[in-house]
């Protein structure tokens, strides 16, 4: 039995093609994935991301606990509402999950984690909590739903639909959130490389939010467009671009690991001792003859690599990929990719491929 979000009936009524996404019955598109992709790059789109899990952590030791549990350092979060992206590492510095941590009060943080890893994350956090002894209370917020309104006109669409939220959310900078009701959080975050909000709210209120932003001009978008948008934006997908077999350094996520000072976060020693397995970079297909996809083998100057995510980029009109390449591979290098029975030429680039509607490669 697949799990459903509170918007399931709305998606079906809108003609969505539904797929099993990690045990959730989710819309992959509402017609054309490419049109949905362009809507987000050019105007505004809205995604149901209610399958993602919010986990509240409460107690006076919560900041110290998260400084221990996360590879990025929540000490950077000084203003209520500020957020950061981090990995959760295991004892060998493999990535258990990637998440966003929000600071609301000195005794209250929230983690937003991936759907497929949520239960394992919570078990893991309980173990760390017992180990660290800060006495943090964990609460899985299964009562919340979430939408992402993304695109250059996304915030305007949201404010047209809900003008009463404007005053509280207009001054938000990227990676900052505001609480605009008892349990409604508007965050200037996303997974598309465009401006916009991610909004979480009680499950029974999400249909009002969805219908409001759609009426205000945001196009319903499925997980298909979400994947091409995040890939163009050079953002990793958990389970594909990294997992417990990869350290953050092997997944292009060194920028999310805070090694300043002597902070003893979980997995740090293993991370510092672990040899780098690969360089994580982008590829742009230069030959015709197919589409780059996960698991294709890359032949580079220094040896073999492997694609972890690949697709056709609707914005660039070419195929692009994220790949694990031999250490020392540099942007600009020409490589060959095995696509079925052929070897196609590709160029190594540093992601992102597209940001704020503009090609970067």
């Amino acid at each position, binding site marked *: 039995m697949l799990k459903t979000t509170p918007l399931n009936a709305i998606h079906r009524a809108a003609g969505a093609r539904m797929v099993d996404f990690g045990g959730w019955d989710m819309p992959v*598109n509402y017609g*054309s*994935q490419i049109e949905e992709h362009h809507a987000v790059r050019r105007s505004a789109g809205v995604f149901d991301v209610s399958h993602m899990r919010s986990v509240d952590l409460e107690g006076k030791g919560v900041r110290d606990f998260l400084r221990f549990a996360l590879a990025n350092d929540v000490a950077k979060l000084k203003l209520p509402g500020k957020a950061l992206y981090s990995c959760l590492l295991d004892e060998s510095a493999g990535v258990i999950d990637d998440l966003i941590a929000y600071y609301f009060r000195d005794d209250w943080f929230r983690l937003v984690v991936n759907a497929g890893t949520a239960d394992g994350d919570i078990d893991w956090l309980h173990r760390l909590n017992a180990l660290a002894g800060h006495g943090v209370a964990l609460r899985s917020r299964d009562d919340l739903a979430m939408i992402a309104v993304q695109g250059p006109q996304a915030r305007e669409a949201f404010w047209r639909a809900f003008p009463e939220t404007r005053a509280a959310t207009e001054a938000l900078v990227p990676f900052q959130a505001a609480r605009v009701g008892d349990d409604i959080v508007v965050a200037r975050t996303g997974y598309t490389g465009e401006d916009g909000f991610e909004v979480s709210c009680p499950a029974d209120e999400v249909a009002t939010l969805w219908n409001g932003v759609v009426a205000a001009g945001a196009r319903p978008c499925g997980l*298909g467009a979400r994947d091409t948008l995040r890939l163009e934006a050079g953002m990793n997908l958990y389970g594909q671009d990294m997992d417990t077999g990869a350290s953050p350094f092997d997944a292009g996520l060194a920028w999310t690991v805070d090694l300043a000072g002597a902070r003893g976060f979980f997995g740090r020693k293993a991370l510092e001792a672990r040899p780098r397995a690969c360089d994580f970079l982008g590829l742009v297909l230069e030959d015709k003859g*197919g589409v780059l996809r996960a698991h294709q083998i890359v032949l580079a100057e220094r040896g073999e690599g492997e694609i972890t995510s690949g697709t*056709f980029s609707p914005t660039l009109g070419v*195929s692009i990929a994220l790949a694990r390449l031999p250490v020392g591979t540099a942007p600009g290098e020409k490589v060959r990719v095995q696509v*079925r029975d052929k070897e196609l030429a590709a160029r190594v680039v540093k992601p992102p491929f597209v940001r704020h509607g503009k090609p970067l490669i």
Partner: protein
Amino acid sequence: MNLPPELKYTASHEWARLEADGTVSVGITDHAQEQLGDIVFVEPPKVGRQVAAGESVGVVESVKAASDIYAPLAGEVVANNDELGASPERINADAYGAWMYRLKPADAADLAKLLDSAAYAKASAE
């Protein structure tokens, strides 16, 4: 389901149409393009290739996935629809207009052995 009754079909979601010159045009069904989503690349079999019925002869790739295309009949490939190289999205817009390749059938009687629209509708609903 959009299934022109004058065409023949395969369980692997190809359609086949007998042309006036005796060749058979082959494409993928409207149902298949809908399942695949936005199509971004087509590789038909090379002209001159001899193919067997049911043989994997080419590939169609959407944003989402790659999918093999199969020969509905034995025969020789005599033409490719070159327009699809630059505009593969024409398959999404008009699946039965956007033929991928043409075959000269080894035995024209084989066409009668393919599924008709009703049988295909039943097979693809399962």
